[in-house]
């Protein structure tokens, strides 16, 4: 009598242990990685940076700041105004005269997000890329957002002080992208932001 109850108790104990452990294990499995878990590789954070990048580009384009920034080109030096020496583009934090730098700094700098900006343009040989702002090599979980921008021959380059420069369509005006063989359209640019958390 006493023997058989002892056996039953042991079985009960083992079964209870298994249930308890599997319940704890299951609960841990479910909650260990949520979309909100703090981790640089978290998809949720990537989505957020992606949306933020798109928002920043859209807002800049809507206010005309994106076009002004892309046209912030020194046609005699063949580089962006106040660009880093030896390269045509900005390394690190872009010049404060660049219209979009304020938008980007307010969007990214306070949140420990680094970004690169590049511009793809069309040539007769196909697509080419002009570096714009370079802050480093993107990490594995970098995200990108891009926006198309059409520039016309009637658009003007922006001088270093923000005033209007020469017309793009005028002969002798130098710009990184060539004039496509078309009436008033100059080129179709694709501005791309690559952002990642640091």
């Amino acid at each position, binding site marked *: 009598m006493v023997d058989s109850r002892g056996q039953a108790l042991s079985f009960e*104990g083992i079964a*209870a242990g298994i249930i*308890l452990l599997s319940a704890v294990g299951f*609960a841990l499995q479910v909650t260990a990685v949520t*979309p909100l878990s703090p981790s640089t590789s978290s998809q949720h954070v990537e989505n957020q940076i992606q949306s933020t990048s798109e928002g920043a580009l859209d807002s800049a384009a809507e206010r005309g700041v994106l076009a002004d920034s892309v046209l912030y080109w020194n046609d005699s030096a063949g580089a962006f105004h106040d660009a880093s020496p030896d390269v045509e583009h900005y390394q690190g934090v872009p010049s404060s005269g660049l219209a979009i730098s304020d938008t980007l700094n307010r969007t990214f700098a306070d949140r420990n997000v680094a970004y690169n900006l590049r511009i793809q343009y069309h040539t007769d040989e196909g697509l080419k890329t002009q570096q714009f702002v370079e802050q480093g090599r993107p990490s594995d979980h970098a995200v990108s957002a891009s926006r198309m921008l059409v520039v016309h021959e*009637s*658009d003007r380059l922006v001088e270093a002080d923000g005033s209007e420069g020469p017309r793009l369509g005028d002969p002798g005006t130098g710009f990184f992208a060539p004039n496509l063989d078309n009436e008033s*359209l100059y080129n*179709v640019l694709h501005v791309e932001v690559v952002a990642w958390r640091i």
Partner: protein
Amino acid sequence: MAHLSGAGERGDRGQLLMIAVLVLAAAFIVLALVINSAIFTENLATREDVAGSEEALEYRADVTASIDAAIVAGNEDHELATDAELEAHARNEISTLQNRGGLVQAIRGGVVDLSYDTKQMGDRIAQDNTSRNLTNDTASADWRPATGVDEIRNVGFELTEVDTRGEPFRFRLEGGDNWQLSVSGDSSEVAIKVDTPTASAQCVRDEPTAGDPLTIDVTGASVNGEPCHALHRLSNGTQMWLGTGVSGSFDLRFQNSDRVNGTYSMVTRGGTPDTGIESGYDSDEPYVVNALYSVRFDYSYQGHAVAYNGTVLSAPGEVPP
């Protein structure tokens, strides 16, 4: 005795332990389910309405913005004078976007097709001379740039000088009920005041100085690049934007236009322009030229998960109805 009865008690406690363990296990499972469903709900709630639709809609917005810019550039191009030339310009831009933009979109995994559909023609009434006042060719200070207008968009003023003495400059839409913009001020500040049939509000800015004009984007609801609530919507939701409360066709009217200097531009559909302004581009005096009012184009996008088809209307600087 106590030891013997203790054996019996220990047996009862085993059963109790068993029940407690089962209850705990069940509680854990329920908790896990609750957490899981919360995560799943959040996940569902933050998903797109239709998976993959974002790319199609985003690119549609990109294309629309580009066509908008093309229409503005075409209307401001003095070499494009006739309806046929303007239409050819719009067709050309759409086909370039189709080829050039489509290439980049194809690299990203979407196939885009754009084609020109229809257009609506209108007039662009403007003045490009920054130092002239806003009177018409016959120097009338109270005049109507156009009468019987059906629609108006992309209205902007760039005032280099505002005379704040006396009656202010007014830009009015008159059609039974009137909408009015007036620019008045004191020695240092300028008030941009808007009156609709039911409400009025104003934005105050610094007076324009040499090299720093007062830029009023009436349809974009901004003054000197900063948002102006009086041109858009008040904090209680009252609509204020261009033409609020004016129904049917209307007349455009400038009053006291000799009090301000600067340039302006607006695109109208329907109506008759004032006979006192130049027909065809003029760099000195106000003029009226043919313009594209709006362009409709077909847009289709085939992505990996979604096929989107639609007709898009591009009319840059149009206020909500």
